[in-house]
């Protein structure tokens, strides 16, 4: 695997680059677009997976289908890209549950009114260099390449004055990115691979994420043509997800009175014990990252991934419908975890907006916040879209009926009967529901949370292709040929 040809943000986490900026461009003339790419390459602006010297700002680039078309990629090549990428995320909003308040007509700019052609992501080690770097990139864009505004700033959250890897609901994030074959260790615990026949974790074939390599199926996954253009590339799913923190905290408060007196519920100490308990049950981890499977009663500061739910198939410790259990069911769907082997995602999300301190209320709260969700995969439909449709927005595989994910799932229909005079409408926003299974060992009874509002709304996004450095050079030179 040639890491110098694969873009750096795919297999590297950029953990030491805490501030980011996303720039969006539209290409009005293909020649201008290719000139822009040429200038970026001449300046060595695009960061590969293997660098000679660690950059101050890691910069990467990706293109939507319309972006590839605008840059003059031949029709025969365009036609060989998968249909979901060709259609783009906006067209597939209904499939993804982006309806009602998440519908594209509610998205932020530039996502709502424009089609982004080129995404440039900049991750900086020091925030002050980021602004200057972005200005330089903008100056490289010739006439005929137009920046779409506004750009999107993001960065690791400051909580109590310290940089953290928490997301806005207060949970440690990015704890279980896949271990990939051929990638140098980046300091992780090495416990996030896929299970082998003996149930031991092993690294995941890189072909699950990068085109041109064997995947879990031991074959080369479908690649658009020409292969020289698409090899070493990956599909990138970008979603701007707004997090409604006050809504989340208010919900926890409304449920805690019932929880505190519920039979068998044992809370750890602390004034917010009931909220933390419920939040953990909804997430599947404690705010400090400890898994409920390993630590069912309280967090222990252990962020490891040495769990697979195999001994918690009824969900007594980690509820069957909890967020992290849905996102990666591990061994809880049986067959030694083999069912989930092809549904992994490399997530490179980063927060935007300021963290809301605990003492902020509706009256004095303000600002918007959320996460720029970025996920790399070798097949958008088999990986991201499968997880979104089957595991986030549906509960069938987890014996949860049509209950969606309590944190990030959509809220279409609340399981109530529909009167014939008021037929069911797909864009109707309703409240969600989640069962917290009981625990026979501790005599805790099952608890049904209902009236769960939508905590996360989609505010933009699209499907991108992140070519290799070779692919970018071919596009810049106008030499993407089909023979």
């Amino acid at each position: 695997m040639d890491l110098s040809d694969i873009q750096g943000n795919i297999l590297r986490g950029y953990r030491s680059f805490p501030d980011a900026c996303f720039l969006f461009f539209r290409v009005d003339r293909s020649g201008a677009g290719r000139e822009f790419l040429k200038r970026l390459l001449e300046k060595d602006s695009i960061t590969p997976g293997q660098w000679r010297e660690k950059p101050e700002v890691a910069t990467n680039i990706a293109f939507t289908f319309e972006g590839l078309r605008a840059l003059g990629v031949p029709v025969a090549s365009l036609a060989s890209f998968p249909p979901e990428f060709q259609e783009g995320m906006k067209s597939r909003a209904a499939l993804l549950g982006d309806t009602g308040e998440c519908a594209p007509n509610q998205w932020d700019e530039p996502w709502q009114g424009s089609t982004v052609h080129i995404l440039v992501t900049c991750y900086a080690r020091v925030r002050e260099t980021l602004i200057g770097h972005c200005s330089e990139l903008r100056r490289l864009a010739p006439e005929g390449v137009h920046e779409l505004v506004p750009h999107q700033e993001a960065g690791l959250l400051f909580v109590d004055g310290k940089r953290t890897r928490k997301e806005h609901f207060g949970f440690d994030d990015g704890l279980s990115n896949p271990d990939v074959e051929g990638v140098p260790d980046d300091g992780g615990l090495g416990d996030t691979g896929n299970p082998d026949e003996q149930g031991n974790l092993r690294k995941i074939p890189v072909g699950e994420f990068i085109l041109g390599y064997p995947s879990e199926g031991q074959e080369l996954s479908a690649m658009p043509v020409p292969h020289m253009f698409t090899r070493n590339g990956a599909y990138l799913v970008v979603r701007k997800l707004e997090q409604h923190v006050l809504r989340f905290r208010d919900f926890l408060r409304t449920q805690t009175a019932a929880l505190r007196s519920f039979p068998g519920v044992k809370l750890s100490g602390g004034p917010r014990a009931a909220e933390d308990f419920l939040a953990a049950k909804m997430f599947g981890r404690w705010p400090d990252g400890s898994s409920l499977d390993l630590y069912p009663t309280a967090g222990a500061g252990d962020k490891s991934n040495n769990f697979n739910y195999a001994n918690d198939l009824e969900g007594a410790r980690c509820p069957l419908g909890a967020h992290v259990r849905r996102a990666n069911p591990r061994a809880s769907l049986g067959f030694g975890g083999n069912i989930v082997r092809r549904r992994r995602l490399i997530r490179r999300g980063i927060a935007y907006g300021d963290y809301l301190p605990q003492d902020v209320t509706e009256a004095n709260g303000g600002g918007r916040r959320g996460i720029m969700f970025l996920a790399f995969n070798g097949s958008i439909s088999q990986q991201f879209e499968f997880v979104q449709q089957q595991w986030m927005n549906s509960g069938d595989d987890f014996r949860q009926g049509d209950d969606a994910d309590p944190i990030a799932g959509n809220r279409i229909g609340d399981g109530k009967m529909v009167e014939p005079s008021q037929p069911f409408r797909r864009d109707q926003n309703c409240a969600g529901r989640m069962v917290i299974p009981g625990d026979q060992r501790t005599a805790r009874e099952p608890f049904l949370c209902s009236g769960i509002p939508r905590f996360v709304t989609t505010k933009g996004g699209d499907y991108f292709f992140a070519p290799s450095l070779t692919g970018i050079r071919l596009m810049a030179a106008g030499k993407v040929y089909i023979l």
Partner: protein
Amino acid sequence: MGNINGKKFGFTALFPIRSKESAVALRPYLRSMDGHPYGSPLSSVDIIHMARFMIIDNLAYQGVPAKRDELKSHYLLFLCDFDGGSLDVLVRKLVSKMGETVDDIWQHCVGYPGRTYRDRLTAYFEDCQLATTFFLADRPNDEVAAILRALMYKRRFTGFVESCQRSRPPDLRAAFLQLWRSLETEPTPPAGSL
């Protein structure tokens, strides 16, 4: 016969589409069916458990070395599980319950005889049918009405649990009996209303 499991019939057919332009017109029409107030116009056909439409545009072959393959036309794939022992049962119901919508869909397909002559339409469906050699059916002996009723019981029971999970046993029993009596007289919900 491979199509039958209990009271259910599993049907899969490939209908060749007249032209690329027809395929282009048909796709958005099929997508627009998602906006139907009861989920789909097919919900009015009260013997259908599940149905799916798909347009097959092309068969791209990827391999080493990669080569393209061409089908003779675009195809409309139609899959349908319904209560009945023969295809004629489905065709009769499609025509009587969906009316013009049957024309709106199948008029784009080669050889479609129209909905006026049911025998010809049944024969057309049979001609386009793919042989089913094994039909795995969930709850093969439960007809649509029975499943709708079971879903209704499940929904009502969930609502009951939601409202009564903190109740003391005497109140719980009284509430459950009230639920049970109401379920006995509640009408079966129409398809697409759940």
